């Protein structure tokens, strides 16, 4: 999780990986998920946190967060073996 911990995440959602030079843009939802995973939140905690902020059903949120974790693995921002804890 070193890569995720090293990311510079701006309040506007601009993300800079200081190790590879890669940059990303995330919206408010994406930033909330990214920061949540970085802070060690599990799947249920993330879904609960997001449902407080966004008017989306829990099933949709759960699916979206899992998909987001897959994208993070694909981008090598988390290890290939990373799974969100339930």
């Amino acid at each position: 999780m070193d890569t995720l911990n090293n990311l510079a995440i701006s309040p506007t959602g601009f993300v800079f990986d200081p190790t590879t030079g890669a940059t990303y843009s995330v919206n408010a939802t994406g930033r909330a998920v990214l920061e949540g995973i970085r802070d060690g939140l599990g799947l249920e905690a993330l879904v609960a946190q997001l449902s407080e902020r966004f008017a989306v059903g829990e099933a949709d949120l759960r699916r979206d967060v899992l998909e987001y974790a897959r994208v993070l693995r694909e981008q090598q921002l988390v290890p290939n073996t990373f799974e969100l804890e339930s």
Partner: protein
Amino acid sequence: MAPFTGTVGVTGLNATDNPGPGVAVATALRHHPDFQGRIVGLAYDSLDPGLYLPGLFDAAFLIPYPSTGRAALLGRLEYIRETEGLDVLIPTLDSELPALLGQEPTLEEMGIRTFLPTRAQHDERAKANLDLLRSRHDIPVPQCETLVSVDDLYTLHERMDFPVVVKSLFYGAKVAQTLDEAVAAFHMAAAKWGLPIIVQRFVAGEEYNVAAIGDGRGGVVGAVPMKKLMLTDSGKGWAGVTIADRPLLALTERIMAALKWRGPCEIEVMRDRDGGLHLMEINPRFPAWIDLTAGAGQNLPFAYVQLAMGEAVTLPPFKVGAAFVRASTNTLIDISALDAISTAGEMLSTRSSS
């Protein structure tokens, strides 16, 4: 540390889409608060775009192409020194170095200082000799061969898997997926830059670059790693950012120690999908993005000037996340601006008139 008040000559003003590093070197010098000197632009063509950038050069001169030989170049530098003063020379093009290496005593006698590699160092890092870095110093270099005849390509598959990268000694690299593509690339590179041609095993991955100065005793005076964020069609960086990459810096230190490199260089490295680093090239001069080192707080062109002047240099750590974006703009001039440089081969006081 006293401010530098002398005159620096900088070559490589061809600020095109495949730019020479001269404009970036001059920009970095102007960026340093202790640079209070003058900069003389040394150009090969009266339309070298760097000549006309406002505020960069105090004067400019045409110099003879490297192919005209050392005597013509030294004679021209002597004239420039007498006319404008020339305390430090920063050559920025690969093709200039053969005429200048080993000439430090002659240049110093003329009052012109440099901080360049020795000929042995220069030759050891040459593309044609990169394989030796692996065998002699255990530096990770992709398998490569130096070819003097296209015939050798027809048996290459017995020794190296395709795709391969076909390179000339000086500039350019072409990925060839097949023998036919390799033959075409060989002829194109040979026609433009001559023989030999280097064929290197292709390494898939991400390219990283390091600008550095070696102290000539195996140490690193300064080194700044950069990741290109945007590329031109020919693979030149159009935007980039400094990164914190310890393995890349460690490899840089190993290379500098192995070569006992003296002076500026750019190290090009490929990181494969497993994170392995592969040295692709060592360019024996500053890169065209060298002004980024000034933006990152480790101003390598100014360090070169200090080293050339015999000063001890200690650089601060560079800032991670310093970025550059290159711009292609039109510089508006009157046709009379071409007059002096085209007819007399020199422009004086270009900076104050802009």
